[in-house]
């Protein structure tokens, strides 16, 4: 009983409790960026809290493009973990980001959709917005390698 829970067990516990944040809080980088999420009907909405340390262009100002990308990638991974039973943390094979508008110093939100689920690879699309969901600031298209939690 003294061994800490595995990430797969944490995802399962988070799903049973209906609170993905139990899992997010176990990921140092997600905590560092200030990511949280809520679930509604199987679809997660992730939130990136506005913070001075995330700024990449102080003149505009705007959140760093890398941070926006990281937020999209995290949202895609969280949605995969939330959708699928018993998988390890998906590994990104390729990811493509399109930057559509500069992301101002505001809270940013994101959702992801699993567009194709194969036995080994999942394709996921994600988009992020700020004040207006109809005006996305960035989108991503990614392929992930997925592995069952109880085998190779």
């Amino acid at each position, binding site marked *: 009983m003294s061994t800490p829970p*595995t*990430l797969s067990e944490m995802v399962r516990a988070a799903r049973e409790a209906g609170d993905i944040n139990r899992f997010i809080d*176990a*990921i*140092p*980088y*997600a*905590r*560092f*960026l200030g990511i949280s999420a809520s679930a509604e009907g199987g679809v997660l909405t992730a939130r990136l809290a506005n913070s*001075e*340390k*995330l*700024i*990449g*262009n*102080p003149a505009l100002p705007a*959140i*760093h*493009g*890398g*941070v926006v*990308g*990281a*937020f999209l*990638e*995290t949202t895609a991974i969280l949605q995969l973990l939330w959708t699928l039973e018993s998988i390890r*943390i998906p*590994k*990104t*094979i*390729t*990811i*493509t*980001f*399109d*930057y559509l508008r*500069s992301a101002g110093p505001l809270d940013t939100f994101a959702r992801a959709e699993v567009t194709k689920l194969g036995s080994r690879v999942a394709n996921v699309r994600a988009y992020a917005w700020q004040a207006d969901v109809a005006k996305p600031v960035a989108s991503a298209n990614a392929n992930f390698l997925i592995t069952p939690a109880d085998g190779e």
Partner: protein
Amino acid sequence: MAASKRLTIADELIRQYVGIIPHVAELGIETIHAARGMAIMKLPYQERLVGNPETGVIHGGAVTTLIDTVCGLAVITAPDEPSRVATLDLRIDYLRPATPQRDLYARAEVYKLTRHVAFLRAETYEDDPRDLVAAATGTFMFVRRAAARKGLAKP
């Protein structure tokens, strides 16, 4: 004199670029080399950047930030002094997981510069520049410094 003056301008650009970006400073990303459309930067390994606590491997998002940053620096050091740089798109291929506890390096090169668009290739590695963690391609929009001074077109 011309050569040393050019160097001074480049140094000033690099200093402005890395010194005043809060997120770059926060991550401790530093410039290793930058000149004429090519740049190398380093991201020190940090526990808070870990994406999988079971393995200690840093999150892909931190790699994205390093690549986006080094590409931006390569663009502003390209000929004709591009400024007001904005990422248009970025594709990253993950060839292998980063090694825990190791610092990451990224090298970016502008291989084509048009009037408003820079096309780049970038690579991420630890000790061996041939043993890649990630390979990337990106396109960046910019305006030329002379145009920016006159208050002309935004990117």
